[in-house]
């Protein structure tokens, strides 16, 4: 709580991110009170521009875009959380093991790891989602996660490499602690804050991936996510027919989410930087 207060006070980026996330959280909450079901259609007059009654307008399928978006934001956020947590588990295991063991295991793991960085992921994800066409969004999240761990595994490895040389690691080792225990009990807690920052940027990546796959028509097109709404908008040629609000609102909302997540992640990173801490302390003294 104290950290939150400090962040709010010191970092304008964090204030922005906090504001954006309050809006997102509100939308997720609102989705539970939606007057229309997530999959219902022809419930409101079709193709109405934004008005007081339908703030974001209605689409050609007779759905209210605002309420549809509340479901979409909820599902996209769930997908992002799933993708980020699953890929974190893989990244932590690979990074910790490679960093702690070093030597040949490290080389093997890092060669595999770098291959996952180099391989163009989108074509493979396209292949997988074509084959499993129309899988629910939470499975899609897991599949996205299988390809989203390599950058952060490298980061965790480099952190472990430096932690391994600290005195407390030697102390623990000579007191007879096993590798698992040292790595999980002694090293992992040091990484929690940095992991938080990578979770944010990974969520951002996962939402973008979902949008990309959904727009090509590879998601389950009945369940609203941010990508699925854009898919239907382009299926109905919303730009040619002049129903701009059908694309404008989902796109602006996703851009808002991306910027919010990114600001969260950078302000956390900045907060963790010891130089920033020193600055804050000196500021407090001068007050």
């Amino acid at each position, binding site marked *: 709580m104290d950290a939150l207060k400090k962040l709010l006070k010191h970092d304008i980026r964090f204030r922005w991110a906090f504001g954006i996330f309050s809006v997102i959280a509100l939308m997720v909450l609102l989705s539970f009170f939606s007057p229309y079901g997530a999959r219902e259609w022809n419930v409101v007059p079709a193709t109405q521009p934004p008005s007081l009654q339908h703030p974001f307008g209605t689409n050609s399928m007779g759905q209210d875009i605002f309420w549809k978006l509340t479901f979409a934001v909820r599902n996209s956020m769930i997908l992002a959380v799933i993708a980020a947590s699953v890929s974190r588990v893989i990244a932590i295991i690979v990074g910790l093991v490679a960093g702690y063991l070093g030597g040949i295991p490290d080389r093997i793991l890092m060669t595999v790891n770098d291959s996952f960085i180099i391989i163009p992921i989108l074509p493979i994800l396209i*292949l997988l989602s074509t084959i499993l066409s129309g899988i629910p969004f939470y499975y899609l999240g897991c599949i996205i996660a299988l390809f989203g761990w390599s950058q952060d595994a490298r980061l965790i490895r480099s952190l472990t490499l430096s932690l391994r040389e600290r005195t407390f690691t030697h102390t623990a080792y000579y007191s007879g602690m096993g590798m698992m225990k040292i790595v999980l009990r002694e090293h992992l807690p040091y990484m929690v804050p940095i992991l938080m920052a990578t979770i944010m940027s990974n969520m951002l990546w996962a939402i973008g991936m979902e949008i990309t796959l959904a727009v090509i028509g590879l998601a389950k097109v009945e369940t609203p996510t941010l990508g699925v709404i854009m898919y239907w908008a382009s299926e109905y040629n919303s730009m040619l027919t002049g129903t701009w609000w059908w694309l404008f609102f989902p796109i602006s909302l996703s851009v808002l989410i*991306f910027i919010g997540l990114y600001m969260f992640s950078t302000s956390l990173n900045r907060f963790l930087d010891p130089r920033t801490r020193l600055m804050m302390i000196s500021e407090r003294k001068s007050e």
Partner: protein
Amino acid sequence: MKQFLLIYLAPRLVQYVVVIFIGVTVAFFAPRFSPVDPVESMMAKVEGLGMTMDPESVARMKESLKDLYGLGGSLPEQYLAFWKRAVTLDFGPSLTSFPTPVSALVKRSLPWTLGLLATALGISWLLGSFLGGVAGYFESRKWSKFLEAGAMMMYPIPYFISAIAMQILLAYVFPIFPVGGAYPFGTLPEFSLGFVLSILQHAILPGLSLVLIGMGWWFLSMKAMISRVVAEDYVTFAQAGGVSSRKILFSYAMRNAILPQVTSLFMAIGSVFSGAIITEVVFNYPGLGLLLRKAIATGDYSVIMGVIVMSIVAIASAVLILDLIYPLIDPRIRRK
């Protein structure tokens, strides 16, 4: 020299082989774990056209489809056969544009993708690094902060969103650029000034949407690096010695900060390739992305596999080539 080969070259070659191995293996096993049988789904499509066939020709057709897809024999046999296809880059004929071989289709599309990818990556890297360097050196100026805010807004946006936003803004709302395609619809490719100009005109929007997003990252990482380099003793010393800031920035600070930028350029090729693919889909640009999109829509399994394997090979080779020229710009590696 021998040592250089061993220390520098050998790991790169191993990496190259591993990348291709993992890519091809994933591409091989993914369809085999799926509940959908490509042969059955093709048969369903044929029957959906209203064709009636006697059981014998159904069986024969299934047999030849299995052969085409490389699904005959046991799993290890199929795996070996798949490798043979991958190494010879021969994925058989495409089913929707029969009998054109997949490799011919890929060969037709690859130059468009590579052209778009290479120019966009090159421009965004150069421009982003340059601006990031200058902004990092003059960190306290207002324009520097303004540029950083802009880069921070652009960087997290996925390629698809930027492509579609560009298309709406500069092709529909303000129709300055063509909506899509690589050259005017209905014209035949020819070698003339007018045609080249129209190719450029069509490439600007897809290129711009890739550049804008890519630049954000190069800008941010270069700026962070320069502001660290500027705090180093040798820069302070040069400043005290009266060396002009332009010389410090370009010959001292940037020269040192550019090396990590080059390394991350190699790593970024794969993800920018993914970006190029999706940008092509948005702009109907006749590269690998559009080929893949059409193959998915028509269920053309051999084309999908061909595009994926060949793009992995192409990207891995590009990274290897760049890795091999890297010692030319980093003298430390040559001396080791």
